[in-house]
Structures are given as structure tokens and as C-alpha cells.
């Protein structure tokens, strides 16, 4: 029996402990926002966060996540009906085309901004290098990460760095 906390909810699974976390998330937990793309950690479509760090769930045995905190795209927004600043920025910049890689892109970007709230172009390249977008929306991904980072730093400067205010700022930016 493996016990996971996924998006804040405790989950138990009895699948073989060598099963990649990806398939537990998609099939046992039916959280289908996390995608299968290559199965060998090359494309990043399966990216989720393990204790905050972006990982490739297609290569991570579920045993490695036992007792750990997992966040998937379904848990990225701070609450129902709200958006994470990155999600708002993704809409503002109209990032997704087919959209299939975007859950993984967003989870990698979320991990980046948490550890580095004001990333440079090089920081973004490094953090996002593992996420392929076959629709080629890299320019928009970079711009959206910067918009979200700016929304975050503006709020920090005002001393109101809680997530919901960040979202409100990102939405205002999107409305411009």
C-alpha cells in the first residue's frame, strides 16, 4: 500500500510499487490533466511537483512518492474558481494551441517561480528545457512566465504577497 497526498488529499493505492506515478495519477486517481508523452522523461508532458520540485512522473516509481506531497495541474489554482498567476498569464498570452503539453509546462514554471520569483531568460531556459511543445509556443511561454513573475514581484513590493492578490493583478494585466 502506497500513501500519497495529492493536491492536499490523502490517497491510497495498492498498485505495484514500481508503477510510474504517472499511471497512478491518471488511472487510479483519474486526474487526467497530467499527460503521457514519451515514457522516458524526455518531453515533460507528465511533469508534476513532488514536495514542490518538478519531476517527470513517467519515470518516478510510485514508491518514491510514498508519504510525499504531490501537486498536479488540478491542484495548481489556489482555490476553485481562481487561477494561479501562471494560469492567468497563460491566458493573457494565449499560450496553448493543442494544449497537450501545457499541464507539464505550467508545473515546471510553477516550480521555477517558487524557487526563483524573478527568473532571467537563462533561468527560464534552464527550468523549461525539459518540456517540449510541438506547437512551438516557446516565445509565449517565456513571456507568460515573465508576466506571472512580474505579478508576483509587484505584490511583494506592496507587501501583499498572498496568492489571491497575485491572481487579481495578473487578471488586471490580462484585461489591459
Amino acid at each position, binding site marked *: 500500500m502506497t500513501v500519497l497526498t495529492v493536491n492536499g488529499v490523502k490517497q491510497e493505492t495498492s*498498485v505495484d510499487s514500481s508503477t510510474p506515478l504517472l499511471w497512478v495519477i491518471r488511472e487510479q486517481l483519474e486526474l487526467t490533466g497530467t499527460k503521457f508523452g514519451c515514457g522516458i522523461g524526455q*518531453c515533460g508532458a507528465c511533469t508534476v511537483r513532488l514536495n514542490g520540485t518538478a519531476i517527470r512522473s513517467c519515470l518516478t516509481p510510485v514508491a518514491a512518492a510514498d508519504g510525499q506531497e504531490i501537486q498536479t495541474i488540478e491542484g495548481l489554482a489556489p482555490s476553485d474558481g481562481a487561477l494561479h498567476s501562471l494560469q492567468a498569464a497563460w491566458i493573457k498570452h494565449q499560450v496553448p*494551441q493543442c494544449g497537450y503539453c501545457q499541464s507539464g509546462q505550467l508545473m515546471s514554471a510553477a516550480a521555477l517561480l517558487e524557487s526563483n520569483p524573478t527568473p532571467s531568460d537563462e533561468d*527560464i531556459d534552464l527550468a*523549461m528545457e525539459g518540456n517540449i511543445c510541438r506547437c512551438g509556443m*516557446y516565445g509565449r*511561454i517565456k513571456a507568460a512566465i515573465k508576466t506571472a513573475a512580474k505579478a508576483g514581484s509587484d505584490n511583494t513590493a506592496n507587501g501583499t504577497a498572498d496568492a489571491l492578490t497575485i491572481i487579481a493583478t495578473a487578471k488586471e494585466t490580462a484585461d489591459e
Partner: protein
Amino acid sequence: MNKWTRRSFITTGLLAGGGLMVGVALRPGNRAKGLAQHVTSEGETFVHTWVKLDANNVVTAIVPHAEMGQGVGTALTQMLADELNADWNLVKFEEAPAITPFANHPILKGMLPPGVEIPEIVVPTVDGLLMRTAQALNLQITGGSMSVRSTGVYGMRVAGAAVQEMLRLAAAEAWQVPLDQVVARNSQLIHEASSRTEPYSAFAAAASEMTPPSTPQLKTPEEFTIIGHHVERHDIPSKVDGTATFALDVRLPNMLYATVRRTPTFGGGIESLDDSKARALPGVVDVIRLPASKAEALVGNFTATESVAVVAEGYWPAKQGLDALKIVWSETANDYVSSASIFEQFDRDISAGVDREVDVAEGDFEATMANAAQVIEADYRAPYLAHTCMEPLNATAVVEDGRAEVWVGCQAPLPFRQAIADAMGFDAENVTLHNCFMGGGFGRKSRADYAIQAVQLAAKMGRPVQLIWTREEDVRQDFYRPAVQSRFRAGLDKDGNLTAWENTYVDKHEPVEAPLIPYTPLTASNIGYVSSPTHVPFGAWRSVDHSQHGFFTESFFDEVAVAAGQDPYEYRAARLADKPRQLAVLRKAAEAAGWGAPLGEGQGRGISFQECFGSIVAQVVEVTVLDGQTQVDRVVAAVDAGIAVSPDGLSAQIESGIIYGLTAALYGEITIENGAVKQSNFSDYEALRISAAPKIETHIINSGSAIGGAGEPGTPGVAPALANAIFDATGFRVRSLPINLIDLDYKVEDVVTPA
């Protein structure tokens, strides 16, 4: 723009709850009768666009196009909403169900937009397509960059204008006021003199009683309020929170999972199978041999060899089972075919020139060459390419009592339905197909092979089955962009003017005009092809034949300019002088890129020009080549798609097309070894990643010409612009792709002669 012509009719009906349903159709004659009667009398169905106005004043367009990332639903909805003067927030889009009444006819009609000159060699094909359309109704295709310029122009705008006219008439009658005093605005009907305002839906029932206008008045471009303006795509919110449903995300009760391996050598089969280890694995339910399959549809025909599937309680045990199979593949006649032998064959066949077919032959080529002051020759090659959509091929099926229900992401729902029915021996009416968002399509998802496998498995298992291909299977069992070799000879006069152009290439597909060049004048030209078939399955790949010929012709034309000792941009511009629309696009790209401005160490600049899928694109690439490493710094594109219906959507498509083409130019190669594909996954079939992505600037020109395509025109021009930039930077002429196989750091002094 404000005339829509001939061959259209509009039909109306009342929906339960008082809503209005309007269908717009094309047909050969000009009789404005009811749809049902028309269908009955001729056994044909032509309606392609349905528009629904419900009691809540919400307008829903139902159109036969699939969403694979191109934003088609939003662009089409813009066209409807604008003509309808609808409130953008009250307009929705649904993909038509895969049933025959929604067959997509204007996709073919759209190949003949008014005012567009059709090259002579294209005419027989266009006629042929229209003729075949009359016979075959299995068209529900998304491809050829056709949706906006066919369904949008001939369907959505007409529907919007017709509905608006009927609603205004209904309001004028109800209010007893002159028609010209009734204004339709933001989904409201307004009579200002009497201060009356009612929602469209209030008149839906009355409008449904009216005879639809046979020629509704369309807006002029100056009147557009939504077309050409920025709107956010409808589908994007669901693609940032994980709720968008792709076929892979379908979950059915009691569902099994499967994965599959097909004979790796094309044309081969299974000699023997030992599945004992696979069957012993926990979670594995069954191992099933699937027969060879084929489809003979108007679109997406294919043959596929035998395969073995492992069915399990989850994808992971199925994959473990697949890896545990011991399969001996049968020997085939193709076991010794390689990429090298294929290109040797191409070379031989071009040299032999047996049964060479001519696309264009003008002037006396040999006489012109004999008078040339300078002759240049070159051979170009492009490799096979896979599509590698982000979403691996998959389909989910249930088969019960002679009926199949299928969930799939595909570019051709009706041909898929027919192919599944044929494979199972069912009537097409007994196959229900649910088309989901596609995680990329690029042409691959017009072949139904993967959907047929899922249905065959579900039939065997008597339970729902979700078949998921491994990425390795996706790379090795594609319908590849064909490898091509192309041979050129050109003659220049003493002033460096191009006088003669000859081109012979292998195998012609579509679009037929892909190898033509736009430059004039030419004293003589001869463009043609020889047949050189291989055993490698091929299919449409984003921009189809333009993707290879764009690289060939625009690179060799650059060689001509260099041989003439002239600037490649000015040389092109001089030869587009009689085509002002084309010239404007070329000039825009060059000027926006700062053509001629000084560049840094190792840098080069290259230009290309492409006209395809009804749109014109020029690109300037800036590259840095240092120590043999190629970094594409910047791509400046200018595009004239007539009118950009969705400007940001057009820019996004050009950006996307460029990155797709750049991935291929830099890394893309499927190699054949022992008759099979060598590559397996993104590890050896690389995709461009963020750090290698150039800055892309897209400049849109709205010339007002017929609306062109968006999904494909950005792709062909980037490889030649890059190759031309590399020549500018290094003096090395790239004549084969991909570029990463070329040693751009090669120097003669590096070659050490052994002592």
C-alpha cells in the same frame, strides 16, 4: 468581399423551446428548397454549417472541423458573430458530430476562391476533386489550412448574415415598423424611434417561419467589428487547468488498457509469437494478434501490417507485457532497404528520367541553356520525417451487438467512421464516433489505423478498451513526410538574369503547385518528376509537398542570386516586380528584419518567399554559427492571408509553423535501416526546445484578397531562409537536411595528412 456567389442555399427550422436552427449549404443547382426535400430528391446532403439560436439568446455554430491546436473554433465563430452582429460573449462553437449530414463540402469548394488565379497545372486536380466530391460524401476533414477559407467564408459568414436578416425582418413585422429602422447590435434588435429593444431569441420562432434570404448581404471589411480584431480563444481556459478532454483522458467503467507493436519492417509480418512471459505478468489480461488493415477512403487511405497488442488492467502492465513478448518477424523483400539505398534509387531514377511527367514546360529550355553565360547545377535532398504529435496515438472503444462507439482525436471523423465500419463489417450508421481535442495532428491523425486497432481489441475483449501507443510505436509506425531528391539546372545570361530553370524531383503528391517558382521573367523553364516508389508509408505532413520543395526551390534560387553576384533579397524583389501583393510581403519581411544592417561575428542572414494554401509568407532568418554550433537568433515573418480573421491566432500559427519547420530543418530525420525506422523517441528524434527557440516576429499584411490558410504557410519557408543564412554566415551551402548532421566547423586545414 460582400458578394457570395452561387451554389448556396439556406434552410431554417424551429427548435424545441422556440429556438432557431439555420443551415447553410452548397449545392450544384440554385433551387432554394428545403433541405429534407433536397436530400430526398437527390440522395445527397450538402449542409455543412448549422447555426442554433436558443431561448437564452446564445448562438451556437456547429461546424465540421476538429481542434488540434489551430484555434479553428474561435476563428470560425468570429466570422459568424461579426455578420450576425452578435454579442461575442453569447456565441459558442461545437464540433459537428461525425454523421453524414455534417459532411464537409465547402472544403473543396474553397479551393476555388473567386479572384484567385489558379496555375494551369492545378486545374485538372481541382476539377477532379470537385467531381469526386459529387460522388463521395465522406468528407469531414481538417487539413490543408482550409477551415477558415472554406467553411468560414462560405458557411459561417453566410449563416451569420442570413440569420441577422431574418431576425430583423421578424422584428420589423412584429413591431410594424420599416425594416430599415430595425438595427441588430450585440445580439439585440433595436428600434430607436420607439425605444424598443429585444434579444434575438425573442424573434427566433418568427424567423424560423420565414423564407431565408437567398443572397444575404455580407459586410465589407471596413464594417467588420469582430473579424480582424483580437479575441481570446474559447478553448484556452480548459487547457491551463487540466480540464480539456483529449481522447487519452476518456474514462469508461470497466475499461481495460492496451498497447501495441506492429511489424517494424514495413510490408512484413509475424513469423512466430511467444507471449508466455507477457501473460504471466500481473495485470496482463490478454495478448491479441491484430490482422493487417487498410482503408480506401477518399482521404486517409492506408495499408498497415499485422500487430500484437497486450491488454491489461492498466497501461503500465500492458507496456511491461509488450516488452516481454518474444516476436520473430517474417523476412521481407524490404529487409535490406536503407536510407542510403533509397537515395541511391532516387538519384538513379532522376538520372534515367524514365516516364518523366512535366508540371510546367515553357520556352525552349535547351536552346536557352545553350545561350547561357553561366550554368549552375545542384541536387537537394530532404529526409523522411515523423509527425510526433505531443499526444501519442490512442483511441477508446466499446463494441456491443454489432455496434461500435469510439472516442478518438482525429482530423477526419467521417472517413474514420467509414474505415472502422469497413474493418468491422458494420454499417457506418452503427459506428458512433466522438471526436476529442487533439494533442497535435499535423496530418498524422487523418489515418484511422490506430482507431481500427482499438475497435478490434474492444470487440475481442467484450469490454471497453483504451489503446495507447508507445512513443516508440508512434515514431516507427507513422505515415511519414516522404524523402525527396530534387535536381536543378539553371542558366543565367551575361547580366546575371535567370533565363532558364529546370527541376526534376521524385514523386509528386499535393499540393500540385508546390514545386513551382513565382519569379519572372524566365525565357524557359521545365519542371517535372519521375516516379520512384519506396516501401515506406507516407502521408501528409504540415504543409505537405511545400515542406520539401520550399527548401529546394528557395535555396537553389538563392544559389542563382549568388551566382549572379546579386543580393538575394533584391534579386527576388526584381523578379516579383509584376506581383505587387507578393512583393509587398517580401519587402515587409526584409525591411522589418533590417535587411542589410551589419551583423556580428559568425552571423548570417537569409531570406525566403513562399506562396501556399492561399497565403503569402516571407521570412528572414538570422543565425549565428560559431565553432560549428548553429543558433537561430531571430526569425522575422511577413504574412498576407488576405484578411487576418484572428490576428493573434494567425501570428500564433505562423510562430508554430516556423518552430515545426525549424525542428525539422535542424534535427529532423527518420532513417531507414533494414527496412525499418531506426529512431524511437524524442531522445533520437529530437524536438526543438525552449533554449534553441529563436525570437519570432510576425508582421501581418491585410491586403483584402481572398482569405488564405494559416496552419501550414509558416512551415516551408524557414528551412531555406535558415540554409541561406548559414551560407551567408559560413559560405557553406546546405543542400540536405537536417542541418545538425552537417559539420559546419569543417576547415580544410583541419584535415591532417598522416605522416
